[in-house]
């Protein structure tokens, strides 16, 4: 990590003064300002139990402060909607409602995702160590779990974006499994 940082640091030192490093405090309001957002996603999962990666695509919708919906188009149509503490799953014509409090693993994961979208760095900071690199137009936010139970199954979460747009969301699990979601923004706020 420090090896990667070093050239960046040197570049920053050598670069003209105005190009100062982009900070968390600057990113936070950018993300928090977004009230609604929709994006197409392509998700790839590399799992140790499988020989080939799994891939799916669909649409991701967000509404501040805690509404998140993942509408899957392929390979199997369905949707996963989180609203507050409730997770509604629609799959194969069946509809199930779950209380997230009863499924701590799911809860923590959806919570992390939501917090990033909402720019809720306070909540994130409680669960993860945050570090930001890059500039306003190209930044990478790294989240490292502070403690169990998160640290037991997540190694690192990486979010890449530009300005207030999220472009890539990667979860690296303990044990080597990796899941990457590429996002192509469709609309934001008034356009949606």
């Amino acid at each position: 990590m420090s090896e990667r940082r070093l050239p960046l640091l040197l570049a920053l030192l050598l670069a003209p003064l105005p190009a100062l490093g982009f900070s968390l405090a600057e990113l936070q309001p950018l993300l928090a300002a977004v009230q609604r957002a929709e994006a197409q996603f392509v998700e790839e999962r590399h799992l140790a139990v499988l020989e080939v990666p799994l891939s799916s695509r669909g649409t991701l919708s967000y509404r501040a402060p805690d509404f998140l919906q993942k509408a899957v188009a392929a390979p199997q149509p369905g949707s996963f909607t989180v609203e507050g503490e409730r997770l509604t799953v629609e799959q194969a014509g069946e509809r199930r409602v779950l209380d997230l409090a009863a499924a701590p693993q799911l809860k923590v994961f959806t919570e992390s995702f939501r917090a990033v979208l909402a720019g809720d760095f306070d909540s994130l900071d409680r669960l993860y160590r945050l570090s930001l690199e890059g500039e306003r137009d190209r930044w990478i936010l790294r989240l490292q779990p502070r403690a169990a139970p998160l640290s037991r199954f997540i190694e690192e979460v990486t979010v890449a974006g530009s300005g207030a747009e999220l472009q890539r969301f990667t979860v690296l699990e303990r044990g080597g499994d990796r899941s990457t979601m590429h996002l192509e923004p469709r609309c934001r706020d008034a356009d949606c």
Partner: protein
Amino acid sequence: MPRRRLLIPLWLLLSAAAVWVGFLRAPLDTDMAAFLPPSGFDDRLLEQVRSGPASRTLIVLLGGAAPEALARAGDQLVAALLADPRFEWAGNGAALPPDDPLLFRYRYLLSPALDAPQHLQAPWLRRELEQRLDELASPFGMVTKPWLAADPTGEYRRVLGQLARPEGLNSVAGRWASGDGRALLLIRTRAGALDLDAQQAALAALGAAVGRVDHRLEWQAVGPGVFAVESREVIRGETRALTLAATLLVALLLRLGYRSWTPMWAAAVPVATAVAAGAAATALLFGTVHGITVAFGATLIGVSLDYPVHLFSHQRGGRSLQQAAWTIGRTLGLGALTTVLGYLSLTWAGVAGLAQLGIFAAAGLAAAAVTTRLVLPGLLAKGCDANPRLPVRPWQLPAPLRRGVIAVAVTLAAAPLVVPPTWQDDPAALSPVPRHLLALERSVRSALGAAEPGSALYVHGEDAQAVLERSEALRPRLEQLVADGQLAGFRLISDRIPSVRTQLARQAQLPSDPALRQILAEATVGLPFRADLFEPYLEAVAVARTLAPLTPADLGDHPLLAGEAGLLQQHTAWSAQVPLIGIADRETLRRAVAEMEGVDWVDLRQAARASAEASRIAAIEALGAGLMVIALALIAGLGSLPLALRVLMPVGLALGTVLGVFALLSLPLTLFHLITLVLVAGIAIDYTLFFLRHGSTEEGATAHAVLLSAVSTIGVFGILATSEIPLLQAIGATAALGVAAALLLTLALARRPDPWTH
């Protein structure tokens, strides 16, 4: 005279024996069931309902903090209670622990998925694996992944799903909660609901555990055990209060009435003998004495006072007690007889507890009468320093006043013809459980948002396995009822703990290792699973083929299934409860259940209705029979029908007045009210009788005695009317009102010997 001299030692001996038998030897019984009216329902089944595992379950509500904090407190409390041997099970809906080694190992024997023969074939396995793939692609992937290798068909999840309970509860933070923001726990004690000391200890332990979690928490527990303990406390308190109040009242009355303390000590003799004799008779006949009987028995203090009062009031002008006794002896005897018959009528109502009350009082009063007549004069050879003086003589009351009383009484007695009295059909009113507890239970149930319980099937068998097998056989029939729309749902214990027979059948279905490898190879064609991924699965199935089946006995300590294993209970036979949800048509269900062998349906609502109906009939029958017997005894005793009618008239009018008052005030009547009317008749005849026999010759004495006895009787029954126990309240109110009416009417109708013409 030698025979008289034997009387006192004999009395002492008998009294001592009575005290020993009644109070020192006989155990005190506090099972409220003795006072439930006849239900016309199968008592064996009601017994099951009352002593089954449901009777050991308590609902605990936690309050005093924010809902999330309460949920966390609930978790801690559950952990503490599970560690306490007094509790068999405790739960608050917490998410089932992800790994329960026992259930995981036994998943292939416990899961119903393997019952169908097409399962564990390649096509089915393939469908399951495809579903797992979908899950891996979804947010659930993280949850499914750890189990994939060992349990690709998700049997463990199925088994856990069966254990989730109960339906229809709210939840906060994944824990059960009541509708009003309190955390909810269900706990089951090891001790039966009738083991009151153990129940009390369990409740104390619960309170201590709550305090240790957080001393600011407020808690409430409801359930059969709580009711039983509370009822016992109430009875104890009531007995103490009643006895004290009655004694004070009586002492005061005697002092006022005789302006001397001696009659009080003297009156204590027959009164104490009465209580001892009553307790002894009850103990001898029933083997135990019920707490409510003792509470009711305190009224004897006031009623048995009648006899010494008559004796003292008639002793004056240099006359000895012996002479007074001789004068009033026959009247006293007849009056005592009718009163005793009045109390004995309580035994005809078909309620075991009431029979005890009747025997207690009848024996007591008989003893009081005998003691007053035979023992007191001998004991107080020097006479009793009684100095009765009547403030006013009743026949000197102005005629308009007396006519007015009669007119009011007649009007009230006629009222039931115009405004028919209402009957009390609410079983809660007939229940001996104190009112505030029933109200609490109702509020808790509405806080739960749960439907009324009380509809369940009971499956019987010779042993636990027989019950489980029969329960399994029941499943298709119940599923049919659900399909037909007759039922919304049901919970079978065999779904969670299959019979040994079923487990062995499932075991036999598990393919051998080579066969399973073949099936797996076929199923995974084209699927991206890693080649050797499912080795743990093959291993687990191989182990499952050798496991010894699980029995309820094995699960006694298991945190999740101990509660289920406890659903089977053994009294004379084994049985399990099958709760039913959403019954569409009771008649159809009854017919369906009648066809099922070894299965009974206990419909408590029906039982309650039948109970109210049966008790109404019993009440009217007992009332009629009781009054008939008393009238006949009176006729026989007086030897003249017209005289008997003269005695019965004010009494009859008084009874009518009571009914009229109840009808006009729209106070519902129950079995207990009507029975008490017979009691009132028995007591009130005393007054009219004395006026009839001695009204002319001993006006002042009679009036004094009657007034004093009536006031003491009305007083003690009035105190009883303030009881928290609906049963005692009914008796007290009716008796106080009835005796008061009888007294007023007797005074109003009392004249110098001057026969009315009709």
